[in-house]
């Protein structure tokens, strides 16, 4: 033990004071460090943290723009927006979710087998989020729920916009449809612009004019707390939140006349086929029919896989757009253009009579080409040959013209290429030629062009295929004596706010040159003959206007691809396709059309009567008088 130390109060006081001063200095230094830290946070990095705090509290929620309406030429709504009802549940406001769901099953608002799935969805949602538990409620469902509403705290009916097609199937193949935005769609849209949008145009006008119809989505900022719940204030003040209203999409005014469209669809109802009617002076599509069709509404509301499977497996292919994508041999409907070629190349004397004994012998060949149904037309000139559709006459004419001249002459009439209509999916068909055959066939033996093929070409059989749209386009070119207008479905759009209508100028693709006026007249005269004394004389009877037409019958040999037909249907489906093209009035045409009825038999009996109904619907008023030209 060292010597006992005596307390020295003065020394101890000094020691303490010294220590206290050191501690105070350390305190001061610590405070300086703290202040420096605060300076870094609040001054140097203030902007950074401001942004973080802003991002924390404000969430931008999109406001979807109303999709533009689609109207026909007279303003009738073809596609519009309609609210759909759905039942939503806020988990934290429901006292007993299990019991609630059970009661809903009793009310037949949800199905018992869906309950587990719904419970899972609820469990995985935040407790204050509104969870949709039943979509697509009918008015009756809504009413049934409404009367028992008080029994279901935390449940509510919410509305959302869906696409509504008041006429159902009508014009569906022109219109297209909207559906949920898919992975595929996301690749070529601006995701930011589509935030909040649930439906996108998939086909037809809905797809082509998507940008115009979609409009511009707006947004509103909402204040959210740390739980992500939207709150309306923060402390004492309501903060400034920005809102930008959406801009509704433009309304589209189709050139389609729904009245004519209805007549056409009704006339063709029960058959497979297509009707395309154009205004030959502008290219405006008056009617575009492909039957059978389908109800586009079901895609907008969410089609089930069962429904889609049913549409796909349907033997009549309702999803297939025959008007644009169905390629068929045109049959005798090509005769007017062949005749025109003969006249233009001066290889035929229109007044000269040829004798039709029902058979054509190709010079230098043993092959015999027969008249349709083995008819004999006797002595016919060009006019008769068109009016009565004499194959023998055109076999000879085609043979004299040769494939090169036919092919070259027909190309400007739109054969073998798409018309450029303003909806997608169009097929070009085939305009055969020597070059085409060289490319189309692999074996050298098949690549040569045979004279017999030219003969068949002359009556629209063989390799030549067309779509109904192409034939209507071709009819309208003859109707205007060579003027080519690109077919189009949308003639104008309307700004929904100002109501201002912007007309789109028709797109001219030039005209056929080198054809003499009297040659046009001769061919048109032959076509008028068709409806007055020729193959379609029966349907031309008592028409209050003069119209030109041409029947066609296409042999079926390529349609039945990969299909398993029920035996009883085979014969029906192997029948010839029935064609009719027409334009009216013959001298100042206002409408040109093509009608195709698959397996309808001869053109005169099936397609021609439909064409007459469409022409009447467009040209005549309620009293059956020809409407004055507007």
């Amino acid at each position: 033990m060292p010597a006992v130390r005596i307390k020295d109060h003065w020394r101890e006081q000094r020691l303490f004071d010294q220590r206290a001063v050191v501690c105070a200095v350390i305190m001061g230094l610590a405070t300086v460090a703290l202040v420096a830290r605060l300076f870094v946070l609040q001054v140097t990095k203030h902007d950074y943290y401001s942004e973080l705090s802003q991002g924390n509290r404000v969430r931008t929620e999109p406001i979807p723009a109303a999709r533009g309406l689609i109207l026909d030429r007279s303003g009738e709504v073809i596609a519009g927006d309609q609210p759909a009802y759905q039942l939503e549940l806020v988990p934290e406001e429901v006292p007993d979710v299990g019991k609630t769901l059970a009661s809903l099953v009793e009310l037949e608002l949800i199905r018992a087998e869906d309950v587990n799935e719904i419970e899972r969805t609820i469990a995985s949602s935040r407790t204050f989020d509104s969870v949709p538990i039943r979509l697509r409620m009918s008015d009756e469902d809504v009413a049934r729920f409404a009367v028992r509403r008080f029994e279901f705290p935390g449940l509510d009916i919410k509305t959302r916009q869906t696409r509504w097609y008041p006429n159902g199937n009508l014009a569906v193949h022109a219109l297209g449809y909207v559906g949920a935005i898919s992975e595929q769609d996301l690749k070529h849209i601006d995701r930011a612009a589509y935030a909040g949008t649930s439906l996108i145009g998939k086909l037809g006008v809905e797809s082509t004019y998507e940008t115009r119809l979609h409009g511009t989505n707006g947004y509103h900022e909402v204040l959210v707390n740390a739980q992500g719940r939207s709150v309306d204030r923060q402390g004492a003040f309501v903060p400034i939140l920005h809102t930008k209203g959406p801009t509704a999409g433009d309304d589209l005014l189709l050139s389609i006349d729904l009245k004519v469209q209805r007549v056409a669809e009704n006339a063709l109802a029960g058959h497979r086929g297509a009707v395309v009617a154009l205004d030959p002076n502008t290219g405006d599509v008056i009617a575009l029919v492909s039957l059978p069709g389908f109800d586009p509404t079901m895609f907008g509301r969410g089609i089930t896989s069962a429904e889609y499977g049913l549409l796909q497996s349907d033997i009549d292919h309702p999803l297939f757009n025959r008007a644009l994508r169905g390629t068929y041999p045109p049959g005798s409907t090509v005769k007017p253009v062949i005749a025109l070629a003969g006249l233009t190349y001066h290889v035929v004397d229109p007044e000269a009579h040829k004798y039709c004994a029902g058979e054509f012998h190709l010079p230098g060949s043993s092959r015999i080409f027969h008249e349709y149904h083995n008819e004999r037309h006797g002595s016919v000139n060009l006019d008769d040959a068109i009016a009565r559709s004499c194959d023998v006459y055109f076999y000879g004419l085609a043979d004299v013209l040769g494939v090169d001249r036919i092919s070259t002459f027909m190309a400007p009439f739109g054969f073998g290429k798409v018309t450029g209509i303003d909806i997608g999916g169009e097929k070009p068909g085939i305009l055969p030629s020597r070059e085409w055959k060289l490319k189309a066939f692999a074996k050298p033996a098949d690549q040569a062009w045979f004279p017999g093929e030219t003969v068949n070409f002359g009556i629209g059989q063989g390799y030549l295929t067309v779509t109904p749209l192409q034939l209507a386009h071709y009819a309208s070119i003859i109707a205007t004596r060579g003027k080519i207008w690109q077919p189009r479905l949308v003639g104008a759009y309307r700004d929904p706010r100002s109501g201002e209508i912007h007309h789109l100028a028709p797109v001219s693709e030039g005209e056929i040159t080198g054809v003499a006026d009297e040659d046009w007249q001769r061919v048109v005269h032959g076509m008028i003959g068709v409806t007055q004394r020729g193959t379609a004389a029966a349907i031309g009877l008592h028409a209050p206007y003069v119209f030109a037409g041409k029947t066609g019958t296409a042999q079926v040999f390529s349609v039945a691809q990969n299909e398993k037909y029920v035996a009883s249907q085979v014969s029906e489906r192997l029948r010839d396709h029935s064609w009719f093209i027409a334009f009216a009035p013959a001298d100042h045409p206002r409408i040109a059309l093509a009608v195709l009825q698959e397996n309808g038999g001869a053109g005169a009996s099936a397609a021609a009567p439909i064409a007459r109904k469409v022409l009447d619907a467009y040209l005549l008023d309620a009293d059956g008088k020809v409407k004055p030209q507007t």
Partner: protein
Amino acid sequence: MIYEEVTAGSRARRTLSGAARLVLELRIDGPLVVGLALIAAYGLVVLYSASGQSLATVLRTAARLLLGAIAMLLLARVNPNFLRRSTPWLYVAGCVLLVIVAAVGHIGMGAQRWLDLGLFRFQPSELMKLAVPMMCAWYMHERPLPVSSSALAVLSVLIVLPVGLVAVQPDLGTAALIMIGGALVIVLAGLRVRVMLALLGLAAAAAWFGWSFMHDYQRRRVLTFLNPQTDPLGAGYHIIQSQIAIGSGGVFGKGWMNGSQAQLQFLPERSTDFIFAVIGEEFGLLGLLLLLLLYMFVAGRAIYLATQTQDTYARLLGGSIALTFFVYVFINAGMVTGLLPVVGVPLPLVSYGGSSVVTLLAGFGILMALYSRRKLIGS
């Protein structure tokens, strides 16, 4: 030893104003009390906003402040001699209570900390925040300074025993604060700098030794504790949100009750441990500087009072009380601003809840008692 009341028989008494007379009568230190009152008032204003405009919270806190103020005023009148003599008994009683808590303590906050006394729940560990430095000061009172090695050994035991009892509750934050309170007495008692450095070196070696024996997951836990940003959704969430709150407040703040981080509950523990961030967000750098200024004033005044006392017990205890107060402030502010790891230490006089307000004010009461009855040597 003779204690003489400063005020007794003074002629100055008659010339003093009423308020000053009251101060003298109550044996309190005017500047210190004003500083504490300003902090408390500031705290209540902030708390109203931080609690989401809960008047009930503010009233409860005001009631606690009142309770603390009463404790302060009562303790300020206690004779320091009596205080010193009863120190060992208080210490022993505190330790016994800690043992009882460990044995039959009421389960609160997932840890055993409370003793339910019927009217209110009592936290013995809070008592120890004062009892430990008192005990250390008592032990050194008759012994010569600077502290000798044998005294250091005894003091270590006196500190470690209650700290260990609190740590097993487990309440590491309070245990650390108790230890700091005791350690500060030793430092003020003149512990040699080289001994301090040696102890620090020993602690570092122990940490390194422990680290090398730790499993990976334990190391990760330690690292997350030291650097919470590595775990932004877990431990790091608090500190990241509090830095956003403070940083976005800028120089002038977003305004009272208008701090989005606090009001929209992005800031966790906004009315308790992280209320410093609310001040930073709503009142900005200026608001925080004002607060720190008040704290510095109180701590500085308290140290000054401690240096003016005239025996070892009073000096050591007073100094410890003053410094501990500042250490609380620094740990809380350091934690909220990201300078220090997150430990649950409330901001003195401002944070909501706990009996710490009462303890704190009781401590200042003792300090004032020690100061106001100075030994009048040589005057």
